């Protein structure tokens, strides 16, 4: 019984990182229509920021090991990812949708390569380890500290959810949706479209960075392998299946797809002989891809479609 429970807790904690990323993407893609394919990059920036600020001092790095409180690491992760979003946004947000996608994708890959190669800060492929985890030093049992961590995740998700709901229902959110519907028309109404897009982009990137930081302080070890483009694709599938333009949809989609991902993982381990398991892991991507295609064919607006009348 406790096994199942601890599995569920672990499942929902990992799921939380996807939920937060998906909420961050929703403000960019769901509400403003910006096709940011660099989620993994901003997630990585957040993860490394918190790891460097809160982590121990390693013998082979020249920068880092500040051992700061975790909460400070997370706040800085939001700020640094937000600044990364600002810099990326300044150079890419005037681009058309498809070019924005290509350039953010390239930037995310570059960030991953930076993490891989700037060994004096990130320890390259060896990664940063022994990162502090909240409550881990108070409770010996990982079960109890995981319960605490799950509570933190739920609190953070609730806060982000309500903040975003308020934001998208405000006049500011209305302008975002008008930009998504028709950029030129929004401009013709005297809206500084670029500034609004930039603000939404920074906000989304900051949220993705927080997800990365929370991931780093939970798994306690990060390496460039954690920030591959597949992460970005997963978050997109979650948001589209859940319902873009609906914050609750972003949450539901993340849970559904993460459940499917985990279940297919177990299923593959169960039916495929160990020799072929590495290859069979690709089946998960096929399964999730199929779900995406079926969803786009039969219910393109997602499990929870965007509400047409969001009251002001």
């Amino acid at each position, binding site marked *: 019984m406790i096994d199942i429970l601890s599995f569920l807790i672990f499942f929902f904690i990992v799921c939380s990182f996807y939920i937060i990323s998906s909420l961050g993407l929703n403000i960019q893609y769901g509400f403003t229509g910006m096709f940011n394919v660099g989620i993994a990059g901003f997630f990585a920036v957040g993860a490394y920021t918190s790891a460097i600020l809160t982590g121990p001092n390693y013998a082979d790095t020249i920068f880092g090991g500040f051992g700061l409180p975790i909460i400070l690491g997370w706040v800085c992760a939001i700020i640094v990812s937000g600044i990364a979003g600002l810099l990326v946004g300044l150079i890419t947000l005037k681009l058309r949708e498809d070019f924005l996608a290509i350039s953010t994708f390239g930037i995310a890959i570059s960030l991953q390569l930076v993490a891989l190669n700037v060994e004096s800060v990130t320890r390259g492929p060896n990664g940063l380890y022994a990162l502090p985890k909240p409550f881990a030093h108070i409770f010996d049992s990982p079960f109890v500290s995981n319960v605490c961590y799950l509570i933190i995740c739920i609190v953070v998700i609730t806060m982000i959810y309500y903040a975003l709901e308020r934001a998208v229902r405000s006049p500011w959110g209305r302008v975002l949706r008008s930009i998504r*519907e028709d950029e030129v*028309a929004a401009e013709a*109404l*005297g809206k500084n479209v670029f500034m609004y897009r930039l603000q939404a982009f920074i906000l989304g990137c900051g949220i993705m960075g927080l997800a990365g930081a929370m991931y780093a302080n939970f798994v306690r070890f990060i390496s460039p392998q954690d920030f591959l483009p597949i992460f970005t694709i997963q978050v997109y599938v979650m948001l589209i299946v859940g319902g873009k333009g609906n914050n609750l949809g972003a949450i539901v989609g993340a849970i559904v797809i993460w459940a499917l991902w985990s279940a297919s993982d177990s299923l593959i381990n169960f039916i495929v002989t160990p020799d072929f398991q590495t290859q069979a892991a690709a089946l998960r991507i096929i399964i999730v891809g199929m779900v995406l295609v079926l969803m786009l064919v039969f219910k393109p607006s997602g499990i929870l479609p965007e509400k047409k*009348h969001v009251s002001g």
Partner: protein
Amino acid sequence: MVSSFSNVNSGREMLKVSNLVAGYRRDLPIVIDVSMEVYEGEILTLLGPNGAGKSTLIKGICGLVEVISGNVVFQGVEISNLETYEIIERRVAYVPQTQNVFAKLSVSHNLDLGAISNVKAYEERLEKVFMLFPDLWKFKDTSAGKLSGGQRQMLALGRALMADPILLLIDEPSAGLAPILRNQVFQQVVEIRESGVTVIMVEQNARAALSVSDRGIILANGRLRRVQNSKELLEDPEIAEIYFGAGPTVRAS
């Protein structure tokens, strides 16, 4: 104010366009060397065949296309190098041609999007818009996508008025409307002018548009062909043949 032609010459110059060259690409100008003036309180109609550069000219005025050379001076201030939002802040409003409302948003949210900052006057302006377009009040909670073509045009006009403009640029207000609605829209344009807003509109229905406007400008191939009193244009047989199609007298012979 109703007798329209009298106020043209008495009105102060509001907008001055000098040698304007504008277009979507620098090497492909659509509007070529156009100079014109717009006077306070008038309705000015831009006429011309498709591709003449009428829409591009008003987009050039409000910064939606690139001004390649020449300049636009609005109330004594050069605006040709400003961003669209900065021009709109100077109380110029632009109504795009068809597909011009946010279909997924409700009518009142569409109107709210038109309002810029000044919260104090917001209620007052909203009331004014609802008085001019009572249908919008009736459908204020409906999503704009469910409105008819005529209602959408009203919404687009109403939304532009929410910014409290002194100069309104309208791109083909009668496009896609049945004749009866067309006249209604033109009547509303007159009402808007009577509330103190100067109007520049692009139109294909030359006859109907000229009958409510003070002056007409005729463009062809991006160049200015004629600037004249609407009445004179309406009576000009050459213009009638080229731009209004063959008149009834011609058809009878």
